[in-house]
């Protein structure tokens, strides 16, 4: 599609570029015209319910699947036609990390090091140490969490430019997740990028710069996490000395889930609506007032819905890049 995909130039602006990426399996369209760009040093959280197309996107980017149409490229190298060049730049944690049952962690490290023509054993040992993983045990004796850790060790040990992580922290306990997050931050501090998929926002919100939401094979939204945070909802409750009506508060833009019952009001409001709402509230005699920030997860669910059902329409707030993927192929 794009002419630069053949060159693979270092000075290319984007680390990852997906352009109209589409994958059909028989009559089933698993991915439908997904376009996105990931810049250097950026962590992109790729969110969606199970079966939405996250793993398909990732395996297309890894050259395991051949796109039906569109392209995926890493630093200008085409993911399908130049997969060897891409793999030299990328560390990959597959969704269900399958390992060689009879090989120990160290043997996995040795094998992958040889295939990469590098010696990453010391670095691998260091990462394994931080994750508290014993590299001397055969993979078949490892728990799910430890298998995940070994997959992470194998992905990061070669100091790749890009990490492609398919639900890397599922099965890993929260303490180790923190270690993983700091490993990820060190990676991005050195200019590395990451594509980090998950079906829950909570898993990526601490590390992602932007998030993309994929649903039924389509990219339905891409947002900066800080923009989402700015639109994060606040739960507002107020009790008045006088009776109030819903109509009095209905005019504030952005207010959702408004419920007025006699003397009490409750609603969810984005930060931008708080000032107008507070002025309306304080114009009446207030007996009690409560305002608390909802978890980002809740905001996110309210906007995009993660259960496979469309959520409420995201507000067309200025500065957001909520966009639907173009070029639906049927």
């Amino acid at each position: 599609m794009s002419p630069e995909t053949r060159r693979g130039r270092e000075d290319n602006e984007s680390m990852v570029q997906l352009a109209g990426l589409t994958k059909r399996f028989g009559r089933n369209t698993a991915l439908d015209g997904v376009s996105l760009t990931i810049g250097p040093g950026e962590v992109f959280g790729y969110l969606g319910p199970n079966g939405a197309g996250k793993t398909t996107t990732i395996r297309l980017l890894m050259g395991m699947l051949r796109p039906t149409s569109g392209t995926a490229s890493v630093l200008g190298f085409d993911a399908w036609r130049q997969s060897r060049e891409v793999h030299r730049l990328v560390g990959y944690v597959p969704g269900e990390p399958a390992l060689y049952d009879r090989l120990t962690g160290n043997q996995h490290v040795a094998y992958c090091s040889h295939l990469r023509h590098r010696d990453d054993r010391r670095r691998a040992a260091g990462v394994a140490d931080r994750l508290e993983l014993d590299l001397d045990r055969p993979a078949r004796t490892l728990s799910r969490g430890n298998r995940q850790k070994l997959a992470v060790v194998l992905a990061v040990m070669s100091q790749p430019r890009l990490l492609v992580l398919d639900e890397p922290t599922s099965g890993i306990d929260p303490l180790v997740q923190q270690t993983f997050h700091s490993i990820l931050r060190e990676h991005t501090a050195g200019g590395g990028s990451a594509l980090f998929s998950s079906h829950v926002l909570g898993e990526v919100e601490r590390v992602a710069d932007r998030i993309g939401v994929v649903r039924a094979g389509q990219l339905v939204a891409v947002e900066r996490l800080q923009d989402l945070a700015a639109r994060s909802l606040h739960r507002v409750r107020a009790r008045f000395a006088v009776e109030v009506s819903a109509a009095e508060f209905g005019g504030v833009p952005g207010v959702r889930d408004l419920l007025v019952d006699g003397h009490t009001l409750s609603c969810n409001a984005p930060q931008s609506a708080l000032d107008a709402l507070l002025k309306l509230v304080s114009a009446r005699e207030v007996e009690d007032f409560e305002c608390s920030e909802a978890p980002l997860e809740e905001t996110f669910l309210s906007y995009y819905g993660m259960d496979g059902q469309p959520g409420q329409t995201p507000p067309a707030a200025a500065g957001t890049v909520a966009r639907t993927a173009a070029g639906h192929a049927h």
Partner: protein
Amino acid sequence: MLTSVLTKTLRDQGRLLLAWALSLALIVATYAAIWPSVKSQPSMSDFIDQMPEAFRSLFATSSADMSTPTGYIQVELLSFMGPIAVLIYAINAGAGAIGGEEDRHTMDLLLSNPVGRGRVVVDKFLAMVLGTFLLAAVMGLSLVLEGNLADMVLPPDKVAAAMLHLALLGVVFGSLALALSAATGRTGLSRGIPAVLAVLAYIINALAPLVDAFDRIQEASPFFQYIGQDPLRKGVAWDSVLVSALTIAVLVALAVPGFRRRDVAG
């Protein structure tokens, strides 16, 4: 042993190859142990002579003389047991080469390294070739060494020739299995089709003297390349070796693009 896809594959097959090698040495030892009693029983040859012709064609190579070590080994080992053992190993190794890693979901891990798919196919092929030749070599060595102990003296150069043809027979069907495995990723299919074709090739070669239709296509049968020119008696038949080598080359040349153009099962 973990320096390349080739050595890793051989390492994976280590125990399996050892078990096969021991079994083959044991089978040959059994035949060698029976030899003294067969030699002193001329009725064995009469028995074969009296078999119906079709039956004799299937289980004994033409003009086999059970009173000589060469004839005995030809009937007992080379017409049936030897090829079956080598074919089972080679077809399994070929079918498991690509599809096996996909079945165990390790192909994503392997291919996420900067290793081309063509390289994976070629390394898996070489591992299958080395394994097959190793088994043929073990069988040949057993024949010569164990045969000497039992007074079943076989000329080493002719044994080597027969084993070369046997190994090539295995590699032909192993390469077919590998090509199917590479192009489809389906292990069962990649095992089943070569197995059925091997049986057909065997029947065509064996019954060619009796069935006109088979006679015309006999020389296309890999079993003809294997034993049709009697390597245990006459040494290497280079034209057959060439046909086998070309067949193998074509199959590997099909396997590489077959794997390159398809999706990898995750």
